[in-house]
């Protein structure tokens, strides 16, 4: 499947930049079906067990044109772009679509995908209220319905043994990626944050076994580097879609080094393994519940889990000097939480900066000015406290 290339990392970056190209090649090579899964919680292991390539549908870089009248301007860039991709036939490579989340903007966009295309779209929202007495039963029911829907979609029975095998492969992939992120937290600087994003993004797109093999090659080919004296930052937020790599590069070019994150295209995606010692479907239910504890998500409600506390703990653990919050413009769940998050960071004396992102582009010079000002502020307080 993988095209020969200069190096494994370059191949992963290429695939992260052009998911459709990979999916097309995969389908041609295997004759299999591919589904588009919407972020952020679809249990792709079930699709894998059914022999289907499950791909997290990525934001494209194309300007929004035909889809402009399908969703209002006040939807996040990802959902507006999804609607546009659907309207322009850019999602035709997928044979069906699965939704496990319930952000109202995402629902609107997926409804456009259903309207605009002629592929089956399955709406299977997982419960958002995580602490109710009936949550677990509801999640179990939903996992069962995903299995049934995928069985119907493929015409194949999905047995427990198939599912257990898929879970093992996915866990292996997550563990491998987590080891790279853990190394970064501990001072490794082999990969830039844009490269790490490509590792995760390509995992969302590729066949997992193939991805794991390619990442292992990339690790073997990489020249190890240790972190230097740059200001250490934690990147927070940005759900569903990837912040542009040039934004990550600009942040690091300003004299910072990203040492940790809770981005969906980062730590959030790989945070949690599925238990291998219990019945597979029950293990997937537990995985869904555990994910929100590993890295809390503002699209979920859980009274004993707190994103602020998680973020402050992460900052302490990684030794980050400051936090940059990346927020997709009009991302309502994030907007709702942000004031509390900012208050908590300020109260703890953690310098922080908000950068809003938009599908339409990035005012790079203005971003640089704000990032540099944050770094100057951090550097000054470090000197003052030295």
């Amino acid at each position: 499947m993988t095209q020969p290339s200069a190096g494994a990392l370059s191949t992963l970056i290429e695939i992260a930049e052009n998911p459709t190209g990979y999916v097309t090649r995969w389908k041609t090579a295997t004759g299999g079906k591919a589904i588009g899964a919407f972020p952020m919680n679809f249990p792709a292991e079930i699709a894998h067990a059914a022999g289907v390539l499950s791909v997290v549908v990525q934001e494209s870089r194309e300007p929004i044109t035909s889809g402009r009248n399908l969703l209002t301007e006040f939807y996040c860039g990802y959902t507006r772009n999804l609607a546009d991709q659907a309207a322009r036939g850019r999602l035709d490579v997928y044979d069906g679509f699965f939704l496990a989340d319930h952000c109202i903007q995402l629902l609107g966009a997926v409804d456009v995908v259903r309207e605009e295309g002629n592929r089956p779209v399955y709406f299977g929202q997982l419960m958002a209220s995580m602490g109710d007495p009936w949550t677990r039963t509801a999640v179990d029911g939903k996992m069962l319905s995903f299995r049934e829907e995928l069985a119907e979609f493929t015409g194949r029975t999905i047995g427990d043994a198939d599912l257990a095998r898929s879970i093992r492969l996915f866990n292996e992939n997550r563990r491998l990626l987590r080891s790279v992120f853990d190394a970064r937290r501990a001072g490794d600087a082999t990969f830039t944050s844009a490269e790490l994003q490509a590792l995760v993004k390509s995992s969302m797109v590729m066949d997992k076994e193939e991805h794991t093999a390619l990442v292992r090659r990339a690790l073997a080919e990489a020249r190890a580097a240790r972190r230097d004296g740059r200001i250490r930052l934690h990147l927070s937020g940005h759900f569903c879609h990837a912040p542009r790599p040039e934004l990550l590069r600009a942040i690091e070019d300003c004299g910072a080094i990203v040492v940790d994150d809770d981005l969906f295209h980062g730590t959030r995606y790989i945070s949690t393994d599925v238990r291998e010692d219990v019945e597979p479907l029950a293990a997937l239910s537990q995985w869904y519940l555990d994910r929100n504890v590993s890295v809390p998500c503002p699209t979920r409600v859980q009274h004993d889990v707190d994103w602020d506390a998680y973020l402050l703990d992460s900052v302490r653990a990684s030794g980050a000097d400051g936090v940059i919050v990346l927020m997709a413009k009009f991302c309502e769940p994030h907007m709702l939480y942000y004031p509390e998050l900012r208050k908590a960071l300020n109260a703890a004396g953690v310098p922080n900066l908000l950068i809003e992102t938009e599908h339409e582009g990035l005012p790079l010079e203005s971003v640089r000015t704000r990032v540099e000002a944050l770094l100057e502020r951090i550097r000054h307080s470090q000197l003052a406290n030295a």
Partner: protein
Amino acid sequence: MSEHFMGVDLGSTTAKAVIIGADAGMVAWRTVQMGAVSREGMRQAVDGALESAELRRADIGRVIGTGYGRRLVPGVDRTFTEITCHARGVAAACPGVRLVIDIGGQDSKAIAVDRDGFVEDFAMNDRCASGTGRFFEVLARALECEVDELAGLARSGSEDLEVSSMCATFAETEIVSLLAQGAEPPDIAASVHRAVAARTLGLVAQVGKRRPIVMTGGVAKNAAAVHALAEALESELIVPPHPQITGAYGAALLALETYEGAPPRRAADLERAEESAAAAFAPQSSPSCADCEVSDSTARSVVLGLPIPVRRP
């Protein structure tokens, strides 16, 4: 030890260069309005400042660049953002300042300053020119007058018209439509000034209002804009006589302070620096207090043309 240090602030519409002595006192400065991060404007500002200080480039120990074009300054030793430089310059010029509102040609920022005169927090407009100097250029074009005439026009306006503060381009069509409806230019001008002030309040809210407040940037030379903002903030605003050069001045101070081998300054140096800065910042061509002393008793006071001593390190 070099005797002179330079700060160059290459902003979106104006280039500014300030030269200070080893005692932190102002020696010379020059502002040149050339538009869009102009290298030629920067060259003229730098050459002009050197000429009036009777110095050559080789006499300058260290140069710090700031502003959007900071990386374009030739021979620059280091760059700092305009946020850090404005905070530094204003804190030196107006000791005790806690909030700086800087409104330049194409951006505006609110900078919270800590008790030591360094940046504590900041907020800036990012991708829209609303609430900036550009907004006033649009207004002047629509009203067919010079930007300098806007303050006088706004002062004579009495009616409060609704003008969107969201977008500079749409504001222009709104102004044209108000004119078509028979609205008076002074009322339109006054209302646009209030809209800009309201927009700036949003920035201030992001960092938290605190006093004393100093306003800088080209728009601080527009007495009506200062006044509308003081009213909106319900607070006194201090405007240095040369509000456009505080960023370059801060950059020059940082050039001095980051110069290796700079000797500790003595009390006599500091006194000389204070005198020299006070003289340099003494009111000259900035809007006079008379422009601002509006008879309306509800108006907040606006302090213009305060002498500015250099802060003791």
